[in-house]
């Protein structure tokens, strides 16, 4: 097992290098740091001195790949590529363009993101499985047809609508919970309820539809026929046999998003004023803080690759037929 995990980690390295090169090309080759400086300082009336100073303060004034002026190893280390891109590999994010320590910000904001993303994930999944099971119970009847159409309608509604309508209805009309904001510790609960509710409702359409297909596929298999043949009641067939077997694809499919929960939800967090990593990213995009966006791209990729590894490992754990190779 350990051997396998080690091999997967080694396999992940070239992918991270690829991600790094892509972001580097995007951020430093397509546009030069001069362009970025002018953009940040306002396009029209920028003196060359101001541009130089902006670059120097943020360390963008060095050569991109090779520093001929430096001596020894510094020729390669005293460059933008080394300082801004390679350091990401040891999770040294450096300062943001606004001068804050990105690593510190991330560690601090991570918890708010988790407080929102984890309940949405768990409650959403339980809800979707329940709805899908209920529909599967009524398969090939009118209930099934109507339910599937209802799910299609639900998934055709824009996610923004769920947020705006939910915020208006629950927060403003009924005054049940605050519209936006956040607090530490247990006080966070009352701020998180509404976004969690909206996240769960918004996910029912596509989620339940997807699980329903999995259930129906499972119901068509031989062991289900055997269970029925020996006289098991329908509910027992569904809950004891189908649900357990269907959980394998459902859970292994969900593992890949687990690490990404850290990143939070961009839209949700910014609408509800939750100071997590999602709103951090949005703020960075709006203020054009390229250093933060770059760090988040790298972090997101790392988390996704971890998710892929966890998926493969979970396959081998739940299904002994899958070999470690």
């Amino acid at each position, binding site marked *: 097992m350990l051997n396998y995990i080690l091999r997967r980690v080694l396999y992940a390295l*070239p*992918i991270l290098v*690829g*991600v790094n090169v*892509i*972001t580097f090309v*995007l*951020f430093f080759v*397509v*546009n030069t740091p001069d*362009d*970025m400086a*002018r*953009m940040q300082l306002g*396009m029209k009336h920028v003196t060359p001195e101001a541009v130089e100073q902006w670059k120097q303060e943020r360390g963008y004034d060095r050569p991109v790949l090779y520093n001929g002026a430096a001596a020894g190893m510094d020729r390669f280390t005293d460059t933008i590529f080394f300082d801004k891109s390679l350091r990401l590999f040891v999770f040294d994010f450096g300062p943001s363009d606004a001068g804050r320590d990105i690593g510190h910000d991330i560690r601090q904001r991570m918890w708010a993101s988790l407080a929102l993303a984890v309940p949405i994930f768990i409650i959403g999944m339980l809800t979707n499985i329940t709805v899908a099971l209920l529909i599967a119970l009524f398969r090939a009847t009118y209930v099934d047809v109507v339910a599937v159409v209802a799910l*299609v*309608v639900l*998934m*055709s*509604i*824009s*996610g*923004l*609508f769920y947020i*705006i309508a939910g*915020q*208006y209805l629950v927060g*403003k009309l009924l005054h049940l919970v605050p519209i936006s904001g956040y607090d530490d510790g247990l006080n966070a609960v009352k701020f998180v309820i509404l976004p969690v509710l909206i996240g769960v409702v918004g996910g029912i359409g596509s989620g339940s*539809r*997807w699980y*329903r*297909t999995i259930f*129906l*596929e499972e119901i068509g298999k031989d062991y289900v026929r055997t269970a029925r043949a020996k006289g098991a009641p329908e509910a027992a067939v569904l809950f004891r046999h189908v649900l357990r077997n269907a959980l394998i694809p459902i859970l292994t499919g969900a593992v890949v998003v687990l690490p*990404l929960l850290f*990143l939070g939800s*961009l*839209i949700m967090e910014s609408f509800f004023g939750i100071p997590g990593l999602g709103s951090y*990213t*949005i703020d960075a*995009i*709006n203020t*054009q803080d*390229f250093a933060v*966006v*770059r760090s*988040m*791209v790298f972090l*997101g*990729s790392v988390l*996704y*690759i971890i998710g*892929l590894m966890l998926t493969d490992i979970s396959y081998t754990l739940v299904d002994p037929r899958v070999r470690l190779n």
Partner: protein
Amino acid sequence: MIKPVILWTDALVYLLIAAVIAFAWYARGREHLRAPWARVLESRIAIVSLVILSAYLAVALLDSLHFRPALEQRGEQAQETYYSVEVLSALDVIARPLKERAEKTYSAPFATRLYAREAMEGPDGVTVWDYPRLRHGGAHLADPDAGRAGDIARRALGAAAAGGALWLLLAALVVAGIARARAEGFTSTLARVAAGRTRIPWRAGLFAAGLLIVLAAAAVRLAGVYHILGTDQVGQDVFYQAVKSIRTALVIGTLTTLVMLPFAVLLGIMAGYLRGWIDDLIQYLYTTLNSIPGVLLIASAILMLQVYIDTHPELFQTDAERADMRLLFLCLILGVTSWTGLCRLLRGEALKLREVEYVQAAVAFGVTRLRIMTRHLLPNVMHIVLITVVLDFSGLVLAEAVLSYVGVGVDPSTESWGNMINGARLEMAREPMVWWSLAAAFAFMFTLVLAANLFSDAVRDAFDPRLRGG
């Protein structure tokens, strides 16, 4: 005098339409290509969705014919014609009154008075604090408070009657067409259509078309004298914005797939069939691209594009061209983030297909690898390609709204539902609430996405019965 302008996205839209027509022509005489489409058309839901999608498509096509009007000549003998920097479309010409009749600020749907109170000089010279009349909305009414409801009803009914007449004509034409194709009498065909006993559910399709025509007629008639969906903060007609946004949504939904298809199909089949280091390389490529969270990749690319556009203003003659470049680039980058799924599917399918007998036979006959891939593999994975294309469409339309909200969507000057929502979401806090911009954007988007989702379900069922049930 006008000067036609072909924007990049226009050209690609024409290309796409030409490709669809060419395919339809090609498939007409080939039973194996035609049969699944015939199955799609047998579904009532698919027909109704198709009618709605066609209406959207018609608006988008009208909005894709761009030109620059000539400016009026000042002097007697001007050597050269100058053209306006404003790029108009055929739709703009039709909807010109809507575009030009701007109010001062917000007004509710069908309102005759402004949303906010203003200080006005009364008839007797005293300054009063009241809601002023709109400049255009309901300006023809002498007494707006009493006469409005009657006026609206009269105009709507008149237009609906005209729409109904138009629909009768259309229905008669369709029935006559069927009767001719079947060499059957008109009345017996009419009876069969009316009873719903045709293979293609014409009755459902005609019913949907009738509803659309009547609604559209009433909307057009009323939009001439009212702001039927209200006005936004700067007094622009919301109905006009919502209609203009249709093109943006369709362009993103279709061109994105058009852009990504060659990569996904070519690389997917190559990886699955050729195996070896090519497979490794292609897998590495799509895993890498896939591992960057989509929104972040799009955000970085669009931010960089914006920097590029802002530092190179000389490349674009008009604002429309600049906005169009951003729209095209958004399609490109969305394509880059979304081709990986299809590529992986195709690779898996090609892996399976390379072992089947007809491919083995082709290998034994010494058919070249290129020929095997184009003649034997490609046609047999096309159903997957098609299903993915149709399924992706609605997701892309929804994604546009989210991206515009984040600020990395289309250009702020481009009309899109995302921009409308973005501009209006802060107005929910006002009292009384300004809801019409949001409602219009969501309603137009919902109709399109729902129709697309239902249609794609029908397409999937017809092309791949194994996937049925979803």
